[in-house]
């Protein structure tokens, strides 16, 4: 099983990297770019566990380690790798 996890900054938290990349894209002539947000994308490969269990475990991993919930939120999807 593969957990595809997205970790992004919460609303209201300034994302300096996104801002810089936004500017850089505009400078490069991509005027259509209105906003950029940069987050993390994690792929966690799991040994066969049931989907329900994986759901619980991955949520826990995110809360404990993979995201800092003071500033970040996360979402994830489980995909079968069979």
């Amino acid at each position: 099983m593969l957990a595809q996890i997205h970790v992004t900054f919460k609303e209201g938290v300034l994302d300096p990297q996104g801002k810089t990349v936004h500017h850089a894209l505009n400078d490069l002539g991509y005027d259509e770019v209105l906003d950029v947000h940069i987050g993390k994308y994690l792929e966690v490969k799991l040994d066969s566990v049931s989907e329900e269990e994986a759901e619980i475990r991955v949520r826990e991993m995110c809360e404990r380690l993979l995201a800092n919930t003071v500033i970040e939120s996360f979402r994830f999807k489980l995909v079968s790798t069979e």
Partner: protein
Amino acid sequence: MKCGIVVFPGSNCDHDCYHILKKILNQETHWLWHKDEVDLSSFDLIVLPGGFSYGDYLRAGAISRFSPVMNSVIHLAENGGNVLGICNGFQILLESGLLPGALMQNHTRKFICKNVYVRVETTDTPFTQKCNDKLVLEIPIAHHQGSYYIDPHSLSDLEEKGQILFRYCDAKGSISESSNPNGSVGAVAGLCNEQKNVMGMMPHPERCADPLWANTDGQSIFQSLISQS
């Protein structure tokens, strides 16, 4: 004062803290290995030093806070023991929830190593009692993830409770955007918990405490701790 310096695999200011506490200030100083969960009740001060404890991978301090030694540190902190987190140590204290808020990438998006000025905002703590109010200290910073963030409500809460210990400022003590090197909210450079026994700061007082250099401003923090133990 009996001091313990925690060594994570990627700590690199551990030796600097040891040098200052042991060789310069003549305090009893011990190493604490991150894999050991031990009774710290006999210690007067635990230092979480700077560095890149786990390469700063994922987020600075995120992985280290699960080290066995952190259970001991948290236990000590909850029982009123003094804990000082410098730079990466500050990041670990935030990740472990001993201090509120988070540290983000500098707004310059670059690592910054240089001398900055901080203003002492509270002298009513074990870490700053030897400083005069509004005293300006010149202290080096060296970090990539040092931009302090907390929501506005909690920030004013910190202010009210006197938990903000240092703010970035200029040589004369005034605070402006240009004197804030990393974009921290409220120019916060260091803060403590409500009980005032856990303190974290981004600047490195151990880098300006050896009299071989002209600047020894960092000593005031260590001297504060020594005088109260």
